[in-house]
């Protein structure tokens, strides 16, 4: 635990694997920038690796004023003991006020380890972060400019705002895809601060025997249009309809957890709380009921079109456009109309005339 330090920096843990930064820290940079500017303090990234490569430059381009770089062979592969040790000593030395991590399996292993050792608070899976004041119930004291850590809980049925006003740093994890990725600016300049790992004598208990990384089969986060299918699609064969519609729109294919569990489509395509969070320009939900856990991953889409036989399905409450009908009828019609360019022009004309 460190004392409250109002001049403390805003830190972001720069998770990386084999010299490649993960998406989350890059996404977190624009939010971090906003928080740091509000507090008038620097934004810093903390990078632990066996070799820094061009990662510090990428972090600066994404908005960091400073990058703390700790290079050590023993940091080449993540494990809680070594990473936790390094981060705790950096925190004690530099007393940041805010420290954010991606809510990846590594971030959700590392951040609690650090929080436990520092005896500070940690809020999991935040979907938004703001700066604001807090007055504890039954007290007249107002704590100004705290990190408001906003997160869903109870399976997404409530949104809790959590603060930590006395035992700093204020730490939170943020799920991947929740914060929009900012444009990098390679003209930005920033300071690179090299720090020693001081790992001699620190036990690293885990031995990695085998390691498999793979690229996801689909990049949902980068897609402007997503066509997603749910249990209502009925079968894996029938899921071809979803693929066909996606193809003719140049869209990516997503699925609800029910669709994944039923084997219609691979887990990489899952949208939602335990899948990917997306914010495409258009999200077409076909035969998806719109459970809170699904909504958690797609409600920020620019436009939502729901195709469902049930006019009362919760997805309709999220949708901008709705077709109440059987997807087996609707989707082939959509494909036909999109493919016949004439139909489209005609339709566009109709709309323009109306």
């Amino acid at each position, binding site marked *: 635990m460190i004392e409250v330090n109002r001049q403390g920096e805003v830190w972001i843990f720069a998770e990386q694997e084999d010299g490649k930064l993960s998406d989350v820290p890059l996404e977190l940079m624009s939010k971090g920038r906003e928080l740091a500017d509000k507090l008038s303090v620097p934004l810093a990234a903390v990078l632990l690796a066996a070799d820094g490569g061009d990662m510090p430059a990428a972090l600066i381009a994404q908005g960091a004023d400073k990058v703390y770089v700790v290079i050590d062979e023993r940091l080449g592969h993540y494990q*809680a003991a070594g990473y936790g040790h390094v981060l705790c000593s950096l925190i004690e030395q530099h007393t940041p006020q805010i420290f954010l991590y991606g809510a990846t*399996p590594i971030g959700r292993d590392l951040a609690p380890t650090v929080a436990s050792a520092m005896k500070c608070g940690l809020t999991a899976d935040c979907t938004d972060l703001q700066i604001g004041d807090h007055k504890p119930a039954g007290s007249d004291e107002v704590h100004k400019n705290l990190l408001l850590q906003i997160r869903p809980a109870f399976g997404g049925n409530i949104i809790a705002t959590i603060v930590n006003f006395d035992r700093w740093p204020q730490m939170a994890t943020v799920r991947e895809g929740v914060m929009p990725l900012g444009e990098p600016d390679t003209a930005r300049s920033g300071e690179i601060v090299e720090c020693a790992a001081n790992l001699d004598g620190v036990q690293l208990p885990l031995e990695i025997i085998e390691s498999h990384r793979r690229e996801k089969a689909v990049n949902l986060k980068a897609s402007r249009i997503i066509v997603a299918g749910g249990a209502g699609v009925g079968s894996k064969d029938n899921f071809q309809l979803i693929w066909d519609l996606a193809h003719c729109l140049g869209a990516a294919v997503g699925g609800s957890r029910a669709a994944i569990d039923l084997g219609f489509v691979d887990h990489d395509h899952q949208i939602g709380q335990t899948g990917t969070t997306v914010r495409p320009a258009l999200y077409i939900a076909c035969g998806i009921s719109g459970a809170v856990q699904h909504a958690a991953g797609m409600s920020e889409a620019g436009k939502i079109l729901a195709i469902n036989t049930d006019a009362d399905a919760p997805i309709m409450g999220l949708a901008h456009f709705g077709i109440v009908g059987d997807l087996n009828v609707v989707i082939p019609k959509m494909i036909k109309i999109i493919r016949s360019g004439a139909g489209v022009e005609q339709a566009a004309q109709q709309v323009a005339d109306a």
Partner: protein
Amino acid sequence: MALNCVVCVKQVPDTKRITGEAMTEEGTVNRRALPAIFNPEDLNALETALTLRAEHGGTVTVVTMGLPSACEVLRDALVRGADRAILITDRRAAASDTLATSYILSCAVKKLEADIVLCGRQAIDGDTAQVGPQLAEKLSLPVISYVEELVGISDGKITAKRNVGNGWEVVTCTLPALLTVMETANTPRPPAARRVMKFKKARAKSEVEAMAADLLEGDYENYTAELKATEVEKYCANLADRGLLIEQWDLDDLEADLTWCGRSGSPTKVHRIQSVVLTGGEYREFAATDDGIAELIGELIHDHTVG
């Protein structure tokens, strides 16, 4: 090598079944309106321990921190095969965040001399997945989180496959160690009918106290406090003889430092709670006909969303 496994289990509201009625007007969850269940991934943690005991011998102890009603999950664990069940219950532990929860659990685990501590990866109410790694840090144990498959134990070393998001890795470490187990790790065995009959009578002391009125014959109101206490002790001793006593510990039994428990031990404070109301129903409906769909697609093109 016989293994002493300690499994941390939590009773949780069944968040999958939250409906309007379970939400209070202030937007908080009325836990009583929801069925309380065994946290799903804790069943996978328990199954891992039972499998290890079958292979290596040893014991399986389940621990929960919660209200006396959490004995329900302890009974379930006994029915499924646990050897020993411990309830940690204390008013001073109320409002614990994950840091305080892991501190209190660490005091309990220290008394149990575990070779392996097993947690579920995540509880479905708090949803943080923080308690496992924090408990490991407090106990200075190596942690293997997000375990998808237990490969095995040999020569005092445990090997497991863990999920790292964009892939997996197989890691090994020397025991003692702490694992957090995912639902994909195994399929929990169903309770054995014979044990259901036996362990449905298992009780913790606080439950016995709550039943004291029924235990004592006659004019309960006129019993002295002392006599009530003696009766409770007698009943508990009898349960213990039959292997049906759920042990009950409070923070004094754990020799816990109260500054790190409950509210004072919890740096995170709730600033505000709101319920999620899916807004609206204000969508534009298009007919499922050729014309309706053509109009919709025209609209999307007009918007530059498509095309």
